[in-house]
Structure formats: C-alpha cells, structure tokens
C-alpha cells in the first residue's frame, strides 16, 4: 500500500504498530502531545514532564512514551517533507487505523504549523561551507622595504565560513589589490545578476 505521506512508499511497520499505541490516549491529550512534538521539531525544547503527565492516564511506560513521540515526529516531518495537504494526511492516517478524532486533532495541528515546519526543514537542509560573516578594511600602502614610494590601496577581506567537512567556523583572510578586486567585484556582480534572474 503506497502512502503519500511516506513518499509513495509503504508505511514502515513500526509506524503501524505505534499508531495503535497512540489510539490509547484520549484525543484531547493527543492534540496536546502533537503540540509538544511540533515544538520539538521547530527547534524549541520538548517538555518531557508535560509529556509524561499527558500519557500517565493511559499508563504508558517509558518505551511507549518514546515510541509515541517518535511516531508523531515521523508523521509530521515526513508529511511536511513530501508536502502533503491535511485532507490526504487525514484519510491516509484513518486508513492506517488512527481513530477519527485523533486524526482531526493531528491534522489541525499539522495545518497550523505546515509552513513553519517546511521553513525549518529548509533551513536544516544540507549546506556545505555556509558563509557566516564578511568584514573588510581598506589600507593605503605608503612605502615598503622594496620600494620607497608605493602609494597603492589594498583591501583586506575576512571571510568566516563553516568548514565543509568539519562544520566548525573557519576564518580566511585575503588581501586583494585594487585591480584584482575590480575583477572579483565584476564577476560577483555577474553571478548576482544571474541569481536575480532566477528569483
């Protein structure tokens, strides 16, 4: 059976198993649990005490709590990844056996946070060597040990980027003469024009 929220693939077995665990809590508590899981996916910390309180009525053990948080995370992130609208998500979840009230609660939360989730997922997509900061300084060289009157401007560029392999910030300092810098600027402006044409 192909499900759109799983990317037109079969639903994983563990999701099927844990959906029946989710059906054990009431739909009101389910909606609050969804809110907590969405908070976690959007980058805030999840409040585990609240989650434990919510699942205490249904006497979930720690394994069950972890499983229900995991299955909700999977459903939300996978549905946002494949850009599934909430009606399809609702019908597919009901096909999998999640009761109607739980499904409506879940899909309402999904719809509210749909674009925020997609924004967060876009931010965390793989990017190598992200440029973090650029700073520059222009110096004017008066004289040097080689030549008495130099009289040339010089620009120093400091680029702070994330290392491609390591992921930690690396700083590169380059000093560029006026002519070379003019060439650099012209090329970058051409690239920028090309990028603007795509927007």
């Amino acid at each position, binding site marked *: 059976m192909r499900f759109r929220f799983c990317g037109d693939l079969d639903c994983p077995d563990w999701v099927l198993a844990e959906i029946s665990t989710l059906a054990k809590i009431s739909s009101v508590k389910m909606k609050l649990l969804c809110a907590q899981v969405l908070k976690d996916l959007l980058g805030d910390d999840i409040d585990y005490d609240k989650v434990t309180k919510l699942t205490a009525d249904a006497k979930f053990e720690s394994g069950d709590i972890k499983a229900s948080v995991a299955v909700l995370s999977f459903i939300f992130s996978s549905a946002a990844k494949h850009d599934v609208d909430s009606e399809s998500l609702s019908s597919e979840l009901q096909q999998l056996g999640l009761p109607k009230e739980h499904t409506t609660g879940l899909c309402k939360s999904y719809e509210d946070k749909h674009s925020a989730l997609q924004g967060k997922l876009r931010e965390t*997509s*793989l990017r*190598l060597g992200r440029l973090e900061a650029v700073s520059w300084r222009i110096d004017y060289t008066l004289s040097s040990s080689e030549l008495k009157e130099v009289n040339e401007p010089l620009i120093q560029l400091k680029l702070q980027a994330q290392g*491609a*392999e390591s*992921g930690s910030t690396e700083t590169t300092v380059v000093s560029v003469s006026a002519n070379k810098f003019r060439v650099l600027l012209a090329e970058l402006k051409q*690239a920028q024009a*090309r990028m603007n044409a*795509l927007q």
Partner: protein
Amino acid sequence: MLLVLSEEHKEHLAFLPQVDAAVVGEFGRIALEFLRRGTNPKIYEGAARKLCVPVEMVQHGVEGLMFLMTESSKHMISEVDFLDSVLVLGFGEELNQTLLQLYLQHHSQIRSILSQLPSNLPAYHNLEWRLDVQLASRAVRQQVVPMLTLRLLLTGGGNGGNDRSGRVLQTDPSTLLHLISTLEAALAAMKTSHARRIFRNIK
C-alpha cells in the same frame, strides 16, 4: 559450563561472607554502577570506614564481585552452573542465593554493556543529501549540470559509540544509479540459497 575462579579471585571474594547480606546486596549495586560508570574510590573509602576494614579489602571484594558477574554474563551460564561455580567458594546458602539473584537480575544489562566495547569500524549513522543543478560558472554560462551532494555521517571508528565523523561526497546521476544498483545487488545477495543455508544454521 562451570566458571573456574583463580586463587586470587577466591581470596578477594572470601571477604564477602564476613559481612551481612544487606552489605553484600549494597556491594552488588556498587559493582554494577561501576560497570556502567567507572570506579569511584570515595565510595570504597566510605564503605571501609563503616565496616572498619582496610580499603583494599573492600576494593578487592567489590572488584571480585564485578569480575564474577561479568564472567558469568559473558559465558551466559545457567543458574545451576552459576550455583555450582559459587559453591567452590564455600559460602553459605543465603549468600549463594543473593549472588544468584544479582546475576539473574542484571545479566542482560551486563551483556549489553559488554557488547558495546569492541567497536573499531565506523558504522553508518545518517546520510544527508541535496540535489543541485549547476546553471552557470565563471567560465561557462548557460549550463545544466545536475549534481548530488551527500554527507555521510558515521559513528565509531575506534573511539566508542559517541564519536561522529562525516564525509562529504559528490556524484552525478549516472554514478548514483550505479551506486543504487550495486547496493540493491548486495541486499539481494542475502536472499540467495547459499546465504539462507548459513543463516538457518547459525541460530
């Protein structure tokens, strides 16, 4: 199979009958905590002061108990064999039962801790990817070059399970298709009759 305990080990464990059963239970708990977290000499000193015995005796007793537990869990010996091995030490029946209970409660945990020890090859942790299309470069405009960038995250590599390392790879679509077909062939190799025969005989 029976455990064969060395003389030194028996000497260390000979300390145990001299204390009450509650203390033995406490030692058992300390020993298991040490297996999980590493030793803490302050606890030895505290126990030695309370029991009025030298610190080394307490230390040897606890370490002897730890070794007994790890050896028994390592070989997965049955209850009967465990009791027989412990009989050699000449402890009382109650002490033997306490040790047996300790073993039964914790042997699966100990096995899982022991199984984490030898991890020398890096193992797959996560794969992130992005699909890009190169449209232009400084030298050539008007291009269409699809590229897939991958970051393979691995754990382990000789330093235990918490060491993460990443490799950045780039591939074009045809290499990617080749990669996929090779990996699928590898998965299909698990289903051949040769592999199935071996799996059936391992269990």
